[in-house]
């Protein structure tokens, strides 16, 4: 009884329907726990969490150097409430490193990537925590100050993509955005 102490003998091996369900449940849990290591080796989308500690000032310096060396144009944001009306468009070398800063309240710089090429995208924040959310693909990664979070990324669709911030970072959070163009 649910409200009275347990009486002896208390142990009964599962039987009948209970045994069937326990079997199904154990099997299902086993399948789910195998899916993740399977996908890690066979699947193409994984979050390995590759990261290095970095001082925000150092990351800013690396990004400025990257922008100076690879800028190919200027992006003018025509959204009426854009917090950053202009961003440099930067094209990293195929297979090379790209740097992206999250800060209150924009992603810097805008990136131009080539379809099918693989890039090492370094993400870090200069002030608060931010959320890298690539739309409309809906790929999401956490960005922390003090950590250089490296994504090895291969664009497989063309077009204009918007980086939304999806970690709360103050009053301008909802309008914090950035751009990735894939050609």
């Amino acid at each position, binding site marked *: 009884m649910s409200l009275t102490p347990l009486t002896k003998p208390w142990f009964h091996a599962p039987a009948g329907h209970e045994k069937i369900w326990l079997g199904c449940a154990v099997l299902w849990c086993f399948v789910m726990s195998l899916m993740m290591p399977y996908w890690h080796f066979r*699947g193409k989308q994984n979050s390995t969490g590759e*990261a290095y500690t970095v001082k925000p000032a150092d990351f800013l310096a690396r990004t400025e150097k990257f922008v100076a060396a690879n800028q190919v144009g200027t992006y003018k944001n025509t*959204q009426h409430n854009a917090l950053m009306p202009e961003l440099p468009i930067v094209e990293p070398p195929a297979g090379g490193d790209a740097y992206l800063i999250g800060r209150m309240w924009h992603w810097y710089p805008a990136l131009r990537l080539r379809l099918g090429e693989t890039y090492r995208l370094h993400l870090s924040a200069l002030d608060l925590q931010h959320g890298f959310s690539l739309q409309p693909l809906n790929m999401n990664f956490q960005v922390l100050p003090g*950590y250089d979070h490296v994504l090895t990324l291969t664009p497989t669709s063309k077009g204009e993509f918007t980086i939304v911030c999806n*970690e709360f970072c103050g009053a301008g959070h909802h309008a914090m955005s950035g751009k990735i163009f894939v050609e």
Partner: protein
Amino acid sequence: MPTPSHSLSAPGTPGRVCGTTGLGVCLDAQRFIKLNAVAGIVFLLLGGIAALLLALTRWQTVHLLPVDWFYRILTFHGINMLILWILFFEIAILYFACTTPLNARLFSRKIAWVSFGMMLTGAIMVDYIIIAGKADVMMTSYLPLLAHPLFYLGIILVAVGTLVGVFNFFATLYVAKRDKAFTGSVPIVTFGATAAAIIAVVTLLHGAVVMIPTFTYSMGWTPQPDPAWYRLIWWGLGHQSQQVNVCAMVSVWYLLSHIIVGARPINEAVCRTAFVLYILFINLASAHHLLVDPGVGATWKIWNTSYAMYLAVLASMVHGFTVPAGVEIAMREKGYTNGIFGWVTALPWKNPAFSGTALSVVIFGFLGGITGVTLGTQQINIIAHNTLRIPGHFHVTVVGGTTLAFMALAYYVIPLIFQRDFIFRGVARVQPWLFGLGIVLLSFGMSFAGSMGVSRRSWDIDAQGVYGPAAHLWLGVLGIGGVLAFVGLLVFALLCVGTLFFGPKIEKRAMADWGTPPALAGSQSGSLAHDHYATKGTIVLVLVFLACFAVYYFANWKALADVWPVR
């Protein structure tokens, strides 16, 4: 000197005999069950008002609050619902579970006062400083965001006050055992509550480890803790505390299905093992929130999100079978044997405690459980992290599951402990349905909008210019669901408070029956005790559940396979 007896039947013990169940009630425990339950419901109402404002803001067409108040009220909502309402009500449940079922008296009145005083002081501090606009940091208060020191101090006080209350629970268990107030192992309701209390201790210790250095940092006494470390430890508090809710909720399922239908667990050994699995395999659930974080590797993420082959998920799947199976056996023994689901149609669906429990089981399992395991899968988290899919998941676990179960419990707690029958009983019969429907709509709105990339904790989606009419439509569904759920919550709070003042008093008589299925002629209690194939309806239901689970799970892998390759 003789050992003081803590048995309720000992002479001089402040107790009474319940006029409905014939069980003993400790008057000290009764007072603190009342105090904590009322405080909980007040914070539930505050959090509910906040919820309405938030739903009407995220409903993009209405967009009610200005930006600063949106984040302020969002912080307030999280703290009042997930911390204050739940913790106060859980302390009330713990005080019940360690006294009446064990025929024991509460260990210490003074300790109960200290616990209640600390929790209430801390709660008022936190709520005040949020509304004053000095803690717009969300419930998670991720560093380097920084709130006023009172915010952290208030949370620390609530946590320590809760720990003191949990200590009172354990002390009561100990002296009840020592004084032989009961014989044998504790009843399953107490067992589940004990599991909840053990997890609560581990949880609250995480809270202390993360909140104390954050508090000293906010005072300027120590350097800033590392943001990644903060996330790891904070979620040891934030996620594990949800497992406290799960344990308490499952105990309430066992309690109410027993009180209303006469259900008993079909196999206590299995049910109790499932509670132990919760204790053992939930302690790394913090990982669920770090699946796309830098600094923690793939192996760590994969291992810790499945905590040794999903044994905590297995535990929930066990309870998800055992609770309806117990109900089915009890109904069949009462003579409702028609077909596979004849017992379901004969269930007391107009009894708000029953409908609340049944909806809690279904919403928690079918919606909350399936989405939770899927979103917590390491790689799938890439297409879900920090989108509205996450609140879409936890509103059907902690609100549609835990809060609805606790509401259902209140329909018995108020007559049995406060000794007053409910007013407007017809309205009460509709309340769980209204609240449940609202929460399900809210969750669907959030989940689908989240699948379209709409982020959580965002004041305005139009600023980005990337979300189309479908996302706006689902935010409208979120808004309508939020309004319905708020009306359900308001009705609940008004019924409870109104009953406390105006409900007809119950003195030495049974409470008015909400509706319990009578045993039919010729039926015999215990007649199916050895029939292991009697739960035909339940096994069909759980297999349907498993099919839904598998479809949703693999559909998400497919969706993941469609995004850019990333490592």
